[in-house]
């Protein structure tokens, strides 16, 4: 797929996800998953030293977090930070995105944060996503 086509697709996907989020519609997380995938495709085509490449890499990680897919967000951030051509500003930016998300999570779940680490909470969230509520009991 050409970069122009991907740019058009990501514009439409971000716009849809924002509209769903603004209306509090649950499928917004699926829309953000789509955004993350399209940003990832853009990141494959645009090298990290290019400004649009860095925007796409940050976008892929952010959208994965908005979709609630923490494992994907962390995996993408790690792989982008490990790219040989990744500038320090990108590595710092990716780290900041994950840190801010972790802080926001702790603020939202203050009581849980006293008893569980963020890693444990995310592991539970991942298992819940994969297997549903009954899967946690298994």
């Amino acid at each position: 797929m050409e970069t122009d086509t991907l740019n058009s697709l990501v514009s439409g996907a971000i716009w849809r996800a924002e509209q769903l989020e603004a209306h509090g519609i649950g499928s917004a997380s699926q829309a953000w998953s789509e955004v993350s995938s399209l940003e990832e495709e853009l990141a494959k085509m645009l090298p990290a030293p290019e400004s649009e490449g860095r925007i796409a890499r940050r976008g892929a990680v952010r959208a994965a977090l908005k979709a609630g897919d923490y494992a994907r967000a962390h995996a993408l951030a790690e792989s982008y930070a490990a790219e040989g051509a990744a500038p320090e500003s990108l590595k710092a930016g990716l780290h900041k995105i994950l840190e801010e998300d972790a802080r926001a999570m702790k603020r939202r779940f203050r009581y849980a944060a006293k008893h569980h680490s963020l890693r444990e909470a995310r592991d539970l969230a991942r298992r819940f996503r994969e297997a549903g509520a009954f899967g946690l009991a298994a």
Partner: protein
Amino acid sequence: MDIDLAQLREMHTRLPADLALVMVGRAALALERNNHASGVGVSLNLEGVVSIGLLSWPGAELSKIDQHDHNRITEDGAEAVALALAHRHRAWRVVRRMQREECADWLLEDAGEGRRQVVALEVSGVDRGSIVARLAEKLAQVAKSTDVDQRWASVVGFEEPAAALHSAKRKKRGN
């Protein structure tokens, strides 16, 4: 300056057709609910230079306005006007929409003289009242945008049609 919203998609070929249609439709609703008709005069403030332009749009179906969120009409309508204005004033074209954490709504390209530059554009709409205070807010916001060559904000008012386009004047790249 004539700004015809019917030409938005021709100005910005990377703008998805369905998105352009919704944005222009909402701009029309935002203007018509304020009792304006296509071909209205619009007060323009482009980098501090004040002038009067002519704003046209395809007719809206005001009877269906309740199907749209009030604030989305203002915000999406403002984006249609701002993108058309950016193209008419500076010949910029949309590259892509940005996620809000990038401190701008749109990434545009300035393919004019010399090296291609990328431009962050933050847009906002005001249904009633002055656009001055909002413009200051949006300039402060877009000034934080990284990895772009230029940072601009545009605010569109619908009560008395008005549009401003200003640069945040920060030139450093973020790499």
